[in-house]
Structure formats: structure tokens, C-alpha cells
């Protein structure tokens, strides 16, 4: 599956797993309507609310801070220009994340000119998807490592995942999108998200276990 680059429309009929919402209107919709009417302060409020999420999503996918900064700017500017295409059928934040994923994958493609980068890249690998390490993590990693050391381990570990797995894990488990929202943002089916999420979680667990198991054995 290639990233969506042609349309920013948010028609749920085109998106597998997206359910029609019967809940009260999301508060973002009022800000979006004001922004559409020319109120840039309302749009700035939306930037304040979601810049962190968009930056982190871009950084997780690209693994490059400069790219993530550029992408964050481009995502919000593109959203501002295309606001009329947002019809409120999905959450505004999911719409932004979808733009961010597309921009991030495009950036990866530019960086690796000889390779195609998509959500499908390397997702066929079974490496690390079958549990092999059955050691408990005791004591907790937070008790063994400083925050800085732990951050290094987490960054290094997630960077080793294929982009397709890294992106699903980032949206679902770090940014806390629902499975359906993750599917919508990535243009994947719900079963495809679940399958990738399982493998991403198991691969990360296996990789982290190498560090935390070592620490457990006193050989940190």
C-alpha cells in the first residue's frame, strides 16, 4: 500500500474500519469552522493542540529532527490551505496525522532515492515476531536506568523496526489513537493494523528484552 498523497478528503466511506460517529460534535469542529471563515487565531489554537503529536509522529517515522520540524510546518500549512476539504467526517487530529504520515513517508523516499518507502516495506519480515526470550524484567527498567539511558535505549530500539511497524506502533501505542483511527490515518484495514501492531509489539519486546534482561542479570 502506498501512502495517500493525492487526496486529503476525509470521507469515511473510502476508509476501511471507519465507523460513522453518533457522538456529540468534537470541540475541534468549532475551531475548524472559525478557521475556515478566516479566523487565524482559531487555527493557531489547533496548532497549539496538535503540534506535539504531529512533531513526534514525524520524528518517529523519519528518525530525523530537522525533517520532523520541516514536516510539522508543512503539515499545518497544508492543512490550512486545504481546510475546505475537511468535512468533519473524521477527527481533525486524525486528518492531521494522516497528512503527517504521508509527508513523512515522502521525506523518507527522498532520503533513500534508490528505494521505495511505503507502509508495506519490510512488513513481511517475521524477525522478532516469534517470542524467544522468556526472561522476566525485574526490577523494572525505570529502576535500573536513568531517564537519559532509558531514552537512548527506547529510541535505538524503535529505530530498528521497519517503517510500517514503527508507524503503527507510534500511532496506536504512543500517540494513543484507537485501532480504527490508526487504520484511517494510514489507509489500512483494521485487521492489517492489528496484525502489524502485534508484530511491532512483539519485535520491540524482544529487542528491549536484550537490554532489560542483561540488566536483570547484573551485566548492564
Amino acid at each position, binding site marked *: 500500500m502506498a501512502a495517500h498523497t493525492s487526496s486529503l478528503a476525509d470521507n469515511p466511506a473510502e476508509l476501511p474500519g471507519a465507523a460513522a460517529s453518533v457522538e456529540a460534535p468534537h470541540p475541534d469542529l468549532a475551531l475548524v469552522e472559525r478557521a475556515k471563515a478566516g479566523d487565524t487565531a482559531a487555527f493557531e489554537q489547533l496548532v497549539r493542540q496538535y503540534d506535539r503529536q504531529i512533531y513526534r509522529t514525524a520524528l518517529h517515522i523519519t528518525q530525523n529532527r530537522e525533517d520532523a520540524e520541516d514536516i510539522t510546518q508543512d503539515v499545518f500549512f497544508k492543512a490550512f490551505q486545504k481546510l475546505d476539504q475537511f468535512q468533519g467526517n473524521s477527527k481533525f487530529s486524525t486528518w492531521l496525522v494522516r497528512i503527517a504520515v504521508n509527508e513523512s513517508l515522502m521525506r523518507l523516499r527522498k532520503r533513500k532515492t534508490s528505494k521505495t518507502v511505503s507502509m508495506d516495506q519490510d512488513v513481511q519480515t517475521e524477525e522478532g515476531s516469534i517470542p524467544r526470550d522468556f526472561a522476566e524484567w525485574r526490577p523494572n527498567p525505570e529502576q535500573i536506568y536513568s531517564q537519559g539511558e532509558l531514552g537512548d535505549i527506547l529510541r535505538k530500539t524503535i529505530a530498528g523496526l521497519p517503517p510500517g511497524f514503527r508507524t503503527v506502533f507510534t500511532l496506536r501505542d504512543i500517540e494513543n489513537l484507537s485501532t480504527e483511527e490508526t487504520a484511517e490515518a494510514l489507509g489500512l484495514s483494521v485487521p492489517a493494523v492489528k496484525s502489524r501492531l502485534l508484530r511491532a*509489539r512483539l519485535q520491540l*519486546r524482544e529487542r528491549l528484552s536484550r537490554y532489560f534482561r542483561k540488566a536483570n542479570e547484573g551485566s548492564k
Partner: protein
Amino acid sequence: MNCTDFLAKLTDYFDGQIDPDLLAEVKEHLGTCHHCEVVVNTTRKTIDIYRHSQPYEFPDDLSNRLRSAIMARCNASKEGAEAKAKLHAELMRDAQTRSSS
């Protein structure tokens, strides 16, 4: 339920989207299989540690800098669009004046 069946249900189990009958089978398997119990505990810890540690910082000064740059681009784009619309309206008005005289 064997370990392979259990792994296939792991995502639904974590997400609380599992039928009660199947949940009972999952719990029964977990009660008898230490390896799967470890996999569940350490996978849950994997999720928790990433969600709570937030390995990438987003300091206020970066947020402020990005927001300023974004809003400068948006405002420039809006002003450009308004100027274009104004020019278009003036041209239309001139054309109407010429055709009526």
C-alpha cells in the same frame, strides 16, 4: 488453546476486545503457561514504557518557534489570497464599467 492460538489473540486481549468465552480460554492458558505469562507482562511493559517515557522531547521553545513559522506562512498565504481576490474584483469592476460605457 496453545501458545500460537494465544499469540493470535494477544492484540485483542490487550485492547479489551475479546469475547467473554475466548477471554476465559486466554486466562486459563495464562494460568498454565509461564512463557506466555512473561510475554504478556513484558509486552504490556513495552507499551507502558514507550507511552510514558516519551523518548522524544518537545520543548516549549521548539513549539513556539514552529508555531511562529507556521502562522507566518498561513498569514502570508491568507494575505496573498485576499490581495488576489481584491485585484480580481477590481478588474471585474473595470471591465463592467468599460462595457457599460
